[in-house]
């Protein structure tokens, strides 16, 4: 799969496969195209060349309706959180439930509250996104991404801007999701959490995947870049 923006070649013929109910961690320096790769998986960005298969279906070939059906089973945490700032935090989390379930409103509110409690934000239910800090926004956005308990969860830098304790709580949450059968793709700079969550890790550099395997595999890599990466304790 390849992707360019203008003259800039961001992804140059990368190939990888993610197993069901496993956690896949995408590592790499800033601006190497990790977020772009993640967006390919949910069809927000289309590749110039190549294919993206989700559950055996070719995402790039689907029409709007079919793509929408696929997306209903996916959750996406944006690097920028991307909370809808016209709605309260609670409504943001309830949004996917309101759109895609027939649950009564009371039930939806309860579930949304529960999801916010999972990320430690139950008291922020009625606040507007603008009243939250960056880390809180990220957690609220994660609650929204997980609102429908999606089978595939795509998270872009979940622990950026979080204190180590909250970060590890988030990691724990993701692991829980994985254990309940969800496939998880995580973009992160945080090596400890990558180690904690990841079943398989990949390092993206200059449009190529330069290393792929378990944390142990990567530790043993003799690529200097990979080595530097794995040695840094908290991402940069």
């Amino acid at each position, binding site marked *: 799969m390849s992707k360019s923006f203008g003259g800039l070649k961001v992804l140059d013929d990368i190939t990888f496969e993610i197993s069901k109910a496993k956690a896949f961690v995408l590592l790499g320096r800033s601006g190497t195209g990790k977020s772009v790769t993640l*967006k390919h998986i*949910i069809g*927000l960005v289309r590749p110039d060349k190549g294919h993206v298969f989700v559950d055996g279906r070719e995402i790039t070939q689907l029409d709007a309706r079919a793509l929408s059906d696929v*997306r209903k089973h996916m959750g*996406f945490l944006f690097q920028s959180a*991307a909370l809808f*700032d016209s709605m309260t935090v609670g409504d943001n989390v309830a949004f996917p439930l309101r759109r895609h379930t027939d649950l009564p409103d009371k039930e939806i509110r309860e579930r949304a509250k529960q999801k916010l409690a999972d990320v430690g934000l139950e008291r922020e239910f009625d606040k507007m996104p603008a009243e939250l800090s960056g880390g809180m926004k990220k957690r609220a*956005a994660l609650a929204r991404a997980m609102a429908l308990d999606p089978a595939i969860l795509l998270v872009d830098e979940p622990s950026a801007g979080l204190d180590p304790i909250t970060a590890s709580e988030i990691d724990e949450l993701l692991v829980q999701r994985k254990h309940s059968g969800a496939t998880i793709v995580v973009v992160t700079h945080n090596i400890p959490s990558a180690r904690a969550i990841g079943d398989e890790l990949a390092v993206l550099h200059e449009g190529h995947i330069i290393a792929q395997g378990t944390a142990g595999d990567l530790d043993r890599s003799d690529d200097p870049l990979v080595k530097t990466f794995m040695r840094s304790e908290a991402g940069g």
Partner: protein
Amino acid sequence: MAIVDRVGGSVLSSLEFVGALATFGGRAIVSAFRPPYEVGEIVRHLYQFGLRSMPLILTSGFAIGVVLSMHTRATLARFGAEAMIPAGLAVALVRETGPLTAGLLVSGRVGAGIGAEIGAMRVTEQIDALEANAVDAFKFLAVTRVIACMIAMPLLTVMMDFAGIVGGFTAETAVSGMSWQLYFERSFLYLEFSDLIPATLKTVVFGFLIASVASYLGFTTSRGTEGVGEASTRSVVMASILIILSDVILVKIIFFFYPQVPA
């Protein structure tokens, strides 16, 4: 040569803009007829565009009524035709002043809002977030605004017309002490269905243009916060120009169907 290139280039880019806008608007119309109808969002925007615009529209309409009344009085009094002030004012308001001013005011208030809001949603990935949540962002954001604006526009125009009549009455009664009942009655002396209905309904087109242009510019925003400001400003500028241009065409069309025989 450079000038020719530049002029050619700007002609081309404005043609491109019109083409893209037409495609955008056309898509909005087509997709408005497909479920889901996003009634909740339409209501939310109607609240924003309609109810929240009322203070602006009513005060402006009132002021315009006062000013127009003073002008018509000056002109008509010269012919000893003061009795025609209410009718003259109402005809001017209902036929053109009301619709056009309401259109321009709404393009300022609502157009800027739409451009900025959707632009901000674009640059903060909220539009992507909608798509990721299996929501048709175009429909959810643009179509609902276009529909709400198309509904709000004629209603605001009628309110503007009436606010203008009340303003005209206030100015008139201050001078001549005319009663409201007589003033109101006389306002409709020369108004025809063919004045009120087409002039009011043409603002549906204004509403469509305002919301389409602003949504389009919002959707195509890039370059972060700076782009948001630009989307907002350009929305107002483009919507105002399009309103005035379309008004020329619409008035022509109205005259074609309801010929105005010179008195």
